[in-house]
Every structure is written in structure tokens, then in C-alpha cells.
């Protein structure tokens, strides 16, 4: 493999794993917090139990988020020293502040988990709020570095030197709010739907023999659907805004996302299909006339620059069209499923869901995670060939360290990186699910016993 591709694969692979656990590390604490608050308000023991179970899950997820994140951080410095030199000089603030976010999250999560029984109920809620804030802040801040890569600000390059550095201008770069907002709300979307997904699955299993457990999971399902539904709607609105930012600041990314070759107004939105470079169009897709112009600039007259008006070597890979579509379609499905579920239960007052609904709920969690993966790979790959848009190419940022004989080493490392992260962790997670299940069974038996004694 070519040097640059190896470095990218190592980084992309690690990020692809990190992002799953990191996103859940932002989304699940919110759900735990809500469960604790609901318990506080309603005194319904089920919510307390929910908070306990989710906490255990969250702690294990974090056990993967932290090592992969540590790898990500160090990899950035090791694999992309050219990039990190600019970041170090201009964009170090978010990393710096993020450290405090990590500290807050780590401190209070440890307190919430290991000292749960020696702190007061109020202190538990406060700890959880701090955990949620820490997680959100770390996501927002690291995303800011990503936003900076797309819309760099706060410095100039003069004869190869970095001059007029303004760290706060870099921090508040043009896409900071929109991009960070998108990542934050999509993380809450994912948290909600993953909870809903697990709950729906358990309901399917518990349906006949255990009405008590069924009711418990039903509450969790509704919580997940409501939160996921609200946030997926916000995600779509904010995604629309992200798209306008991309139109404004990275036009070739937008053109590649839509497979648009010719510059035009009244440009169509292409859904599905594959971009064919030879025929200069999207094949097998559905076209919505004029929509792209409207969505990008709020007017059908908006002129969208096509790929042909950019130098060929500025083009991102054309498959990003599929990634972008994947994300948008998933977003629409999620909104729909949540809406149908909530209307069915709350407004039509039906007691139970048909099987097909249940399986749709089960699908939402994995779908949301796929949305996250699609979105990130689209955002990172769509920025190619730049690591900092129009300022530094990825090929200029990569480490000079490896020559051929080290490349072999690289490859081994690459294999070994993927080794602990994927198969092993998945084994653990399966094992963990089994364990949780037995725990759950025990816990429920206990609950039932307590119930029987009470009534």
C-alpha cells in the first residue's frame, strides 16, 4: 500500500471505531440523566433501574471510547505532524479546553459509578449533569478542529510562515456553530434510538412470558423514541444549514455530494444512484428538479458550481454522493419511525405495537450509527485532497517517517490496531450482553419479589 493511503487507513479505521463509542458516550449520559430525573419526579422504581442498567452499559462503552480516543489523539500527532504543526500554532485552544472537559467527565463518571451508594440523590444528578456537559463539550470542541479543517480562519500563510495568528478567530471559524451543533444533536439522536432499539428488541423477547419486563422496556422505548424523534428532527433542520455552509465554503464538496458536473441555476437534487464520471451524471438516481438550488441558497436561482469548473485534482472522490445520500435517507427514516411510534401510542392510544413496527424500532439504533459513520466519512473524505481546505494537502501533512522498510512495520501495526479494536471488542460486547442479561434476570426476579412482598 502507498504510504499516504496506509496512514489514512490507520487513522480512518481508528476514527471509525472511536466515533461509534464516542457518539454513544455523548448520547447515553443524556438518557441516563433523563431517567434519573424522571425517577426523582415520579418515584417510579423502573426509572431508577433504567439509570442503573444504562450506566453499566455506558461505562463499558467508555472503556472503548477512551483507548480509541487516546490513540486518535496521539495518532494525529504521529501520522499528521505537518497538520498538527499548524493546529499547534493556530488551533490549539479546542484541544486544550477539551482536556478539561475530559477531566470533568472522567471525574464525575467515576464518582457516579463507584460512589453511587455514598453520595446523595441530588449529588448523583449533579454528577450526571456534569458528565453530560463534559461529554457534550468534548464532542463540540473536537468537532471544532474538524470545522476548522473545512473553513480555516485566524491565520495567514506568508512565504511558508504562519503569520497574524488569532487563536480565537480560529476557534470561532465560520462553520463552528453549525458543524458542532450537527454533531451534538446527531449524537443525542443516536443515543435515543439506540436505547429504543435495545428496548424494542427486549420487548419482542419478553412479550409473552413476562409482562413486568415488557412494561419496563416499553417505558424505555417511549423515552428513546421521543428523545430520538425530537433530536432527529433538529438534526435534519441543522443538516440543511450544514449543507448551506458547505455550499458557501467548500463548493466542490457539494458538487461531488450531488454528482453535479455542469455549473447551473435551478440545479436538481439527485437522490440515490451512482455518479458516473464518463457520462457526467448520476446514474439510476431520482432527480428532484430545482431542489438543490433551493436547498443550498433558499432560491431556485442559486447558481451551483459544477465539478467541471474546478481543477481535476481538487475533486473529492465521487462516491461521497452515496455517503451523503445514506445519511440523509437515514435521517428521514428516523424521523418517520419516531413520529409513527409516538402518534400510535400517545394519540391513537393503541396498547401495543404491531410486529413490523417493533422491528422498525429495533432497526433505528443501527441505522443511526450508520448515519454517523456515513456523515463522518462523507465530511472527511469529501474534503480531500485537502487536510486544511485550500491551505494544506493531506499529502503534505503526512509523516515523513516511514520509508520502505518501516512500511512493513506499519502494516503490522495497522493489523494489530484493528485487532484489539474490532473482533476482540465485539467478543467482549457480546459477552457483556450475555452478562447484562443474566444480571437483568436476577434483578427482575428481585424486583418481582419486592413487588410481591409489597402488595
Amino acid at each position, binding site marked *: 500500500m502507498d504510504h499516504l493511503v496506509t496512514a489514512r487507513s490507520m487513522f480512518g479505521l481508528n476514527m471509525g471505531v472511536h466515533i461509534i463509542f464516542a457518539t454513544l458516550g455523548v448520547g447515553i449520559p443524556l438518557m441516563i440523566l433523563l431517567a434519573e430525573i424522571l425517577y426523582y419526579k415520579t418515584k417510579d422504581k423502573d426509572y431508577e433501574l433504567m439509570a442503573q442498567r444504562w450506566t453499566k452499559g455506558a461505562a463499558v462503552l467508555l472503556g472503548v471510547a477512551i483507548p480509541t480516543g487516546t490513540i486518535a489523539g496521539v495518532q494525529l500527532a504521529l501520522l499528521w505532524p505537518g497538520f498538527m504543526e499548524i493546529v499547534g500554532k493556530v488551533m490549539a485552544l479546542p484541544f*486544550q479546553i477539551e482536556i478539561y472537559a475530559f477531566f470533568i467527565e472522567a471525574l464525575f463518571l467515576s464518582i457516579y459509578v463507584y460512589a453511587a451508594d455514598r453520595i446523595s440523590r441530588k449529588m448523583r444528578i449533579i454528577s450526571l449533569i456534569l458528565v453530560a456537559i463534559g461529554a457534550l463539550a468534548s464532542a463540540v470542541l473536537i468537532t471544532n478542529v474538524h470545522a476548522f479543517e473545512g473553513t480555516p480562519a485566524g491565520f495567514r500563510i506568508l512565504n511558508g510562515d504562519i503569520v497574524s495568528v488569532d487563536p480565537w478567530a480560529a476557534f470561532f471559524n465560520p462553520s463552528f456553530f453549525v458543524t458542532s451543533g450537527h454533531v451534538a444533536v446527531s449524537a443525542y439522536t443516536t443515543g435515543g434510538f439506540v436505547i429504543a432499539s435495545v428496548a424494542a428488541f427486549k420487548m419482542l423477547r419478553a412479550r409473552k412470558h413476562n409482562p413486568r419486563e415488557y412494561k419496563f422496556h416499553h417505558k424505555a422505548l417511549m423515552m428513546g423514541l421521543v428523545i430520538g424523534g425530537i433530536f432527529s428532527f433538529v438534526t435534519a433542520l441543522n443538516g440543511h444549514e450544514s449543507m448551506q455552509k458547505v455550499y458557501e465554503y467548500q463548493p466542490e464538496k457539494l458538487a461531488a455530494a450531488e454528482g453535479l458536473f455542469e455549473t447551473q441555476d435551478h440545479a436538481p437534487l439527485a437522490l440515490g444512484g451512482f455518479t458516473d464520471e464518463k457520462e457526467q451524471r448520476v446514474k439510476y438516481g431520482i432527480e428532484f428538479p430545482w431542489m438543490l438550488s433551493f436547498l443550498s441558497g433558499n432560491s431556485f436561482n442559486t447558481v451551483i458550481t459544477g465539478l467541471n469548473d474546478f481543477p481535476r485534482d481538487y475533486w473529492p472522490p465521487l462516491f461521497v454522493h452515496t455517503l451523503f445520500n445514506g445519511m440523509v435517507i437515514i435521517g428521514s427514516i428516523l424521523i418517520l419511525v419516531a413520529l409513527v411510534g409516538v402518534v400510535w401510542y400517545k394519540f391513537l392510544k393503541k396498547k401495543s405495537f404491531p410486529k413490523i413496527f417493533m422491528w422498525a424500532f429495533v432497526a433505528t439504533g443501527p441505522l443511526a450509527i450508520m448515519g454517523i459513520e456515513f456523515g463522518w466519512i462523507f465530511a472527511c473524505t469529501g474534503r480531500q485532497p485537502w487536510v486544511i481546505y485550500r491551505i494544506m494537502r493531506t499529502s503534505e501533512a503526512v509523516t515523513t517517517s516511514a520509508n520502505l522498510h518501516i512500511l512493513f512495520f506499519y502494516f503490522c501495526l495497522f493489523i*494489530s490496531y484493528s485487532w484489539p479494536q474490532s473482533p476482540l471488542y465485539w467478543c467482549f460486547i457480546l459477552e457483556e450482553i450475555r452478562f447484562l442479561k443474566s444480571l437483568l434476570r436476577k434483578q427482575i426476579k428481585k424486583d418481582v419479589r419486592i413487588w410481591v412482598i409489597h402488595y
Partner: protein
Amino acid sequence: MGDSLLAITVIWGFIFIYAVMGTMDFGAGFWSMVYINRTKTNATDVANRYLSPTWEVTNVFIVAIVVALFSFFPRATFTLGTVLLIPGSIILLLLSIRSGFLVFSHYASSFKYRRALVYISGISGVLIPAFLIAVLPVSQGGFIDIIDGTQQLNLAKVFSSPHVYSFIGFAISSSLFLSSLLLADYSKSSDEMEAYAVYRRDALITGPLSLLMAIFIMITMQSEASWLYDKMMQFKPLLYGSVGLFVVAGIALLLPSQKGKGMPRLAVVSIILQYFLASYVYGRSHLPYVVYPNVTIENGFTHPDAFHSLFIVYIVGFAILFPGFFYFWRLFMKDNKEYSKKKPY
């Protein structure tokens, strides 16, 4: 103090905190492996009880070091990053294996391979300090070749250097020493007297071993990094003071006290002071070089404007965090047996 001196002091502070917390943490993993079969003495139990809540916070410090390094000294990161790609990756791999396993061995109590997990976390806990410390001799110069205009780490030279091995020996013995000392204190304060006896004995064995390794380092340094050796010798009084504190710790462990032999709290404090003095001397003599002789704190320094905003953020951040750390410390460092016996969720 100049800006760059201030910056390197902050980094040195992080490294010191991580060195102490990290060695204790890694060592504790090792002890929990060694005593896994001694169910009676609770030694493994004590080690785990200490380890569980702290490793995550400890881990944040290594991230803090990396971040502080590349934001204050981007040029140094360039050199270090390029040069340390392979050792750095090995450390990462070990770290990720260890923390992954650690988490799972704690949470998945029904996990079939629990013992294997404890072994892996214990062994990697000793290997990590060994690799981490290799950064120090590398930064003292002599291991970086310039090939085709790019810097390369000469791995063959690294792994055949006695100086590197004396550092590695020091890292391993210190991490066992510091952790057994801390665990001794921890178990005494939570009335686990059998565990206390075990850890006190371990500290008495590993302590002199660490001192011996430190002396080895000075001997090999004389020939391999004489510039550093000469500068360190200018701080002789401090070095003697450091040895003096070590002796104090030894005496503290041997003295009789009301319950059980020795005063581990005093020993812990004087040992931490000892390491503080010794690493101050080391760091001070290392200046102005970050990586000898290419990168100094002057030529590797970030943009002054960037530094100023970063530094303000540091001060504000730690002011906000301090109560959190204090609360954390109160909850966990003063072990409370009845509470922590209970399983977390």
C-alpha cells in the same frame, strides 16, 4: 520567567503528575495479578479497589501531556512525532489493550477469561512504563539519524544501548515501588492489615532496587549523555537531598507505630518529595533542550499570541477543576471499606 520556560514548566508538571499517578496505577495492576490467588489477604482486592476509580482520571493526564506538548511546542512535536512513531504506537497498543481489558475484567465479573484479563492487564502494566520511559534517553540525543533529509529513529541503536536499559529498569522498579508503597498506605488506612504486611514487604524490597537503578542511570549517562550528566552534577546538594528523603522513607517504614509496623503515610510523602526533587534536577538540567540537540524550548515554541490565550485557558480551567479533584480525592483516596466492598452497578 519567559513564556517558553513557563510552558515547559507546565508540561513538566503534567509529566510529573502522570509519572507518579501512572506508575502507581500500572504497578497496582501488576500487584493485583501477582496476588490473584491469595484470597485471604485481600491484597488483590485492595489493589483493584484503588485502581477502578482512578485509572480513567490518570489516563486523561497522558492526553493532557500530548496536547500541551503539541500546542506549546509544535516544532518539538514534529520531531518527536516523526521519530517516535513506532515506539509511540507500541505504547498506544499496550495502553489500549490494558485499559480495554481492565474495564472488562472489572465489569464483566462473570467473564470466562477473567483471570487471563487480569494477567494481561498486569503484564502490560509493567511493559508500558518500560516503553514510555524510553522517550527520555531518546530526547537526550544520539539516537536520531538524518536520512535523506528526514529524521529517523535508529531503533537498533536504541535497543542496544545500556543507557536505555537502565532507564527501563528504573521505570519498572519504580512503578512497583511506588505502587506497593501507596497500596501499603491505602491498606493500612482501611485496616487491611494482612494486605498491609504484604505491600510493606514489597516496598522494602523494590525501594532499594529503584535506588540502585537510579545509580545505574547516572553511570550510563556519564558516557552516553555526558552533557546532561555534567549539568546534573551542578545540582549535587539537591541530589543528596533526594537520597536523604529516600532514607527517611525507609526509616518510616521500619519504625514501630501503634498498630502494625511502620508509618506508610510519611513514607509516601517523602518518596513523592524525593521523586519531585530528582526529576526537578533532571528537567532543569535538560533545559533548554527538548530534544537534544535539534529542538530547544526557544526554537520549538508556539506563536506567543497563541501561548497567551492558551495559558489563560489553563489557569481558568484548573481553577474550575480544582474543587472537582478535591471532591474526587476525598471520596476515593480515603478508602471506606464498608462502602467500597459493595459492587458498583
